[in-house]
């Protein structure tokens, strides 16, 4: 690897975007690993894709929509059943601001 594609500072910035936190050792490790992976990805620059359409989904299908009608959904009890942090039928979280 000759040049750094992503610096430790950028790793810190991306971690913030991804809502992840790392200690110094992890930051070093990720910087090193992401650089070697991104360096390998440079391979894609060998191909000229200027006139190529991107593929988002492989099987071309019309966007299927269901009829706009009310159907049974999960009860409030079921929705809240996977956390103990519940108050008055709401999800409870620490202070926001």
């Amino acid at each position: 690897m000759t040049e750094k594609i992503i610096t430790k500072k950028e790793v810190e910035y991306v971690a913030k975007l991804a809502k992840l936190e790392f200690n110094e050792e992890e930051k070093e490790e990720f910087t090193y690993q992401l650089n070697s992976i991104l360096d390998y990805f440079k391979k894609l620059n060998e191909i000229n894709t200027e006139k190529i359409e991107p593929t988002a989904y492989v099987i071309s299908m019309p966007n299927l929509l269901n009829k706009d009608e009310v159907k049974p959904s999960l009860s409030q009890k079921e929705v809240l059943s996977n956390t103990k942090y519940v108050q008055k039928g709401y999800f409870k979280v620490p202070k926001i601001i």
Partner: protein
Amino acid sequence: MTLHKLSAHDVIDLFKKKKVTAYEIIQDIYDRIDKVDGLVKAFLILNREDAFKQAKEIDIKFKNGEEPLPLAGIAVAIKDIIATKKIETTCGSKILKGFRPPYNATVIDKLREAGAIIIGKTNMDEFAMGSSTENSAFGPTKNPWDLERVPGGSSGGSAAAVAADEAFIALGTDTGGSVRQPASFCGVVGLKPTYGRVSRYGLIAYASSLDQIGPITKDVVDCALTMNIIAGHDNKDSTSADLEVPDYLSSCQEGIENIKIGVPKEYFVKGIDIEVKDAINKALRVFEELGAKIEEVSLPHTEYSLPTYYLIATAEASSNLARYDGVQYGYRVEDCKDLSSMYERTRSEGFGKEVKRRIMLGTYALSSGYYDAYYLKAQKVRTLIREDFSKAFNKYDILVTPTSPTPAFKLNEKIADPLTMYLSDIYTIPVNLAGIPAISLNCGYNKNNLPIGLQIIGKPFKEETILRVAYNFEQNCEIEKRRPEISSIKDKENAE
């Protein structure tokens, strides 16, 4: 009794002839699990009580003269990324420990309606990110053929469970090879259906444009049998295809004379194990003897598949995994000063290393200033990879390749080097990028008695063709049917 050694279709025959009951089948399977799963570690959780209850119900209905269901009493293991109502579903991650989905995935409802019995949830690489099942937060699964080796991944628990006779059928998911590569490492059959063939409703998302659920079975007939149950349109999944589903069992019965097989030359270059190459060449001779026409074909963009896949998959993953924030379900770090630090600490403690690495990579590839250079570029190359396949399919009915460049590797051999690990999926990844179906089945063993997998790739929604070719191969290949002898490391040392 040794029911567990049989295929699903043989067990169903016995059930229909009233030679066994569903209860006996389930009893035999749990006895087997109790005997070997301490060594194999295929399961994360067992569904014992519920399974016996269902078995009893099936037996009563059958005794009362009701028609037997197509999968009556068949023990099925489910990869722990597929939602099972009230049964813990963790995705192999600490962040979902204790999560009990309030609903079933569509495939689970379909299996249960067909009489199948969910016996437990299988181990996997966390959020299906990995090729060895070593990335599970709950410890690795071992390959039943050699307990010092990996079962492959990410559906390693499902493949190992079927190989070790702990289940007749298992469901896995395949985003870049996660059904086929472990099936190949464990000597069983694994199918990745066409994108849209099987509903993804209730499949916890990793990379939404690539993920598909597929069966892992002991033989091709069982694979067809399972596809008959799980394939088909589902209005709960907007990417599910509204197309008729053929009877896959009857399509197996036809011959393969005059079928045109393309062999992509780019799949036989450096990195391929010589014993794998020899086994594939032998398989090609079997196809020739059966009347197939074989030619070399070129898929010129093959070498770009891996970077394309990792950019698309990680970008989609970074978005899909944003939902794990500790608020509604799963793990949460307590006593955080504010919401933002709760998110950060929960995610940092809840996710394992590979998941964090992929979230970081995907977030970077999608971030402002880099989107065009990475994500959009990868989507464009994806078009070229798809076109390679469509061109090849203008001339050929199927393509035949190895499933993985090597047989099962040793535990800890590749875990420290992500790029080397990624390379074990080099032959399976292009298929996901193109959205087409492919099956892996055993085509021999190497000198260490490790299974080698053959991959048959088909046209979109032509699962019946690859199943037919696979069935013809299985019936005519004259490869000795071996079963793994599960022995503990200690036993092995004693024997030496």
